[in-house]
């Protein structure tokens, strides 16, 4: 047992020091205030959180949550069929298929967003094409609005949704579907009543991943939404880099982190409840 602790100690210590401690400091800073020059003064105040409650910032928060929700829904609609399709591929094509979907996931958000900029901007691909074809006279403002941001988010986060759903579908016991079919269920009914409910854990996992990632996203809104874009991610980035209001930025981050944690905990509780039920069945057997 001692050996186990020894092995895991370096990693744990590292994370405590470079992840845990910074988070604690951020919490502390969120209750601090600052000098006009941006220095942090550690006197306890709730001003930052109170400021968060102002209508302007609440609005941004709500916008962010709404965007995240919408992104989650859209990625679900696009991602589920894709995951399902991959799982139905012949065996040897499944891993390549999966790799194909996951490759964009590894390319960073910046480059992927930039690719859309190339396509959507005034001198970009679409506009140039449409102008050449004579379908429009002036370039369309495809970029630097909320729709562009949404597009960018969905594009960035789609693989996050696909993988958990795929894993969930793949772990499905296909004999259940055979049983359903044997009992007279048409393909779509079997899907609706057997496949889909049983893959909900995968959907939940993917949704959590997408939602939390959307909440904290700032690259996509920054690159594709421009100056107009105001999601929490941009706001936080702003506080730390331009506005130099670290206490306020910290408060916002803590709100974000807490929200993410709450969701994760809820998710784990839900998963445990499901697994707890299954475990009890095993014990009886």
């Amino acid at each position, binding site marked *: 047992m001692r*050996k*186990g*602790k020894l*092995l*895991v100690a*370096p*990693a*744990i210590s590292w*994370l405590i020091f*470079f*992840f*845990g*401690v*910074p988070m604690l*400091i*951020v919490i502390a800073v969120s209750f601090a205030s600052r000098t006009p020059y941006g220095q942090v003064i550690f006197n306890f105040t709730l001003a930052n959180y109170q400021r968060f409650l102002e209508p302007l910032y609440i609005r941004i928060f709500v916008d962010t949550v709404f965007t995240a929700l919408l992104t989650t829904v859209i990625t679900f609609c696009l991602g589920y*069929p*894709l995951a399902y*399709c991959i799982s*139905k591929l012949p065996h040897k094509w*499944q*891993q390549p298929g999966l*790799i*194909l*979907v996951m*490759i*964009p996931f*590894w*390319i*960073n*958000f*910046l*480059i*992927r967003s*930039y*690719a859309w900029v*190339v396509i959507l901007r005034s*001198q*970009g*691909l679409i506009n*140039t*094409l449409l102008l050449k074809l004579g379908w429009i006279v002036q370039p369309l403002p495809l970029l630097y609005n909320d729709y562009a941001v949404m597009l960018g988010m969905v*594009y960035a986060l789609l*693989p996050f949704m696909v993988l958990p759903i795929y894993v969930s579908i793949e772990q499905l016991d296909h004999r259940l579907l055979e049983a359903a079919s044997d009992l007279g269920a048409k393909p*779509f009914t079997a899907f609706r009543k057997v496949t889909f409910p049983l893959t909900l854990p995968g959907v939940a996992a993917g949704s959590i991943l997408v939602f*939390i*990632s959307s909440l*904290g*996203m*700032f*690259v996509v809104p920054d690159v594709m939404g421009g100056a107009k874009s105001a999601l929490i991610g941009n706001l*936080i*980035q702003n506080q730390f880099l331009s506005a130099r209001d*670290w206490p306020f930025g910290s408060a916002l*981050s803590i709100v*974000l*982190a807490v929200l*993410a*944690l709450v969701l*994760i905990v809820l998710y784990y509780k839900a998963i445990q409840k499901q697994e707890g039920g299954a475990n009890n069945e095993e014990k009886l057997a």
Partner: protein
Amino acid sequence: MKKNWRSSALFAYSLAILAFLYLPLLILTLYSFNDSRINAVWTGFTFKWYVALLHNQRVLEALTNSLMIAAVSTFVSTILGTMAALALNRYTYKYKAVINGLLYLPILIPEIVMGLSLLVLFSQTSVPLGKVTLILAHITFCLSFVIITVNARLEGMHKDLEQAASDLYATPWQTFRYITFPLALPGIVAGALIAFTLSIDDFVISFFVAGPNSTTLPLYVYAMVKRGISPEINALSTVLMFATISLIIIAQVLQPQHTSSKKEKE
């Protein structure tokens, strides 16, 4: 696969989504060879933007930084992560759930929070921002990914094997050297590759902890994008993309194949 209109429609739909995923990347790649300075119009095939990159001192510097930081981060996070994965996998101890949680938390918390928390840490401890802080930050977020990857490989390993080795007179070190390590190696290498890729690719966290003289490639791309479109960005992005893709394909090939091994056991 049953050939009916339903699965054909599904297949077509999926191809469309896949196209949606790849088209922008392909277009970007295409345009990196475009002779025109104003992107959209195609005026000819050329390598000149790539050549320009090679002569761009700032790019070369950023490249060197990225590679160096990635190398060091990969090295440290792979070692620490492998040790942690070994511990998690073979030993049970009291606070296992808590430790598990702590190890996976960095992946779940939004990157921006981790980035700025490190910035706050470094500023409050008066550590100047630069290559060192970048390395420290990169190790931090790579750790969890290495642990997951190596752990996955270890999970696929039968528990009996190490016991069999012990029964056959192998001391713990010999068991590790002859059995555990060789079998875990593909997972460790995959973990290292993933760590390397994440480090090279990282933007958000680097954004917060980089100093004035320590740019990485993604940061450089960002600066260029903000300043205005230059076709060099296309070339640079394409280079980064293909580096990432290659690394990931290699890592995936080394990963245990979840689907087939599960079927084997059945």
